């Protein structure tokens, strides 16, 4: 992953994730948007032949984009882990 802080906007950064697609891009963007400290979150796949996703995040002054992405990923792991155990129990 490559993190590029925005040169003009405070508390904003783009995260380039290699070898990922809409599956992860959309799910991370969605989790980020549920956080009140996130002002902007969006993702794009700039070219169909390059398998990279770019996620752009802008947060309030209370926090940093890196911290919010880390939180989003943590929340995702708990949610998926929870669903997985639920499925195992029901199966």
């Amino acid at each position, binding site marked *: *992953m490559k993190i590029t802080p925005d040169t003009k906007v405070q508390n904003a950064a783009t995260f380039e994730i290699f070898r990922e697609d809409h*599956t992860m891009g959309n799910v991370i963007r969605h989790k980020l948007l549920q956080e009140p400290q996130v002002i902007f979150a969006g993702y794009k796949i700039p070219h169909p032949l390059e398998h990279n996703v770019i996620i752009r995040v802008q947060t309030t002054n209370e926090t940093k984009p890196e911290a919010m992405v*880390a939180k989003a990923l943590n929340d*995702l*792991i708990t*949610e998926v882990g929870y669903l997985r155990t639920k499925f195992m129990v029901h*199966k």
Partner: protein
Amino acid sequence: MDLFSPANKPEIRIQELTGERIRFILTNTDLSMANALRRIMISEVATIAIDMVQFDLNTSVLADEFIAHRLGLIPLDSTEADKIKYPRDCNCSGACKECSVELNLHVKCTEEDTTKDVTSKDLVSHDPRFTPITEGPKDAGILIAKLRKGQEIKVKCIAKKGVAKEHAKWSPCAAVAFEYDPFNKLRHTHYWIEEDEKKEWPQSKNANDDFPPLDDEIFDFTAKPNRFYFEIETIGSMKPEDIVMNAFKKLLEKISSIQMGLHSNDVPINGREPTRDVF
């Protein structure tokens, strides 16, 4: 977001589970999560499929590449696909027992007045864990070619582990049906009608498990989908519940690897902090 308050605990309810299909409802989660699960089941659950074919003899009427393609599409039992390595992760230079399975096919037609069917049952696997699937002893197998008297096919196949993102032959699912909001309460779709929507558009079977709108219900434009109906049909190489389990596992792996990537950025590159311009 308060993930684990009682009101929004995600939930899965299995409605039907047979040898080749599963139907379940995913609730209290969002569209992106349901869609990620669907996408992974279609294209990122690993299976085993024939990937390389060496022709020693082919006197049938079919071209080599035609037969090779048909062999690739034959479902092989992939319940233990996680016990085998991806070819790219293996230290060997071509194909070894750690990362591949060899299957042989040698059929010759000797009968006079009839054609001989070459089927998936004629494939002999070197590894009993990875064999072409059959539905019991009565199953005739999958037809690969037909031979006339004197015609012969002798091939060596190398099966490898892969995902359907690379080639659809590695997909464990025949179909993944996915639906939310069967009554179109969210108005995410628009039904073309002659006169009456209720008369002209039949209800989905998932409508029985959803909550029909009241006659005077006001449109809630803030509502978001939170009940997702899945139906997964396998091609037989894997049990349907295993596909869902493997999809969850894969999703967790993907998130963790991104997390690792994020944390590896904490270490300053070239011994200095990345510059941060503030204006």
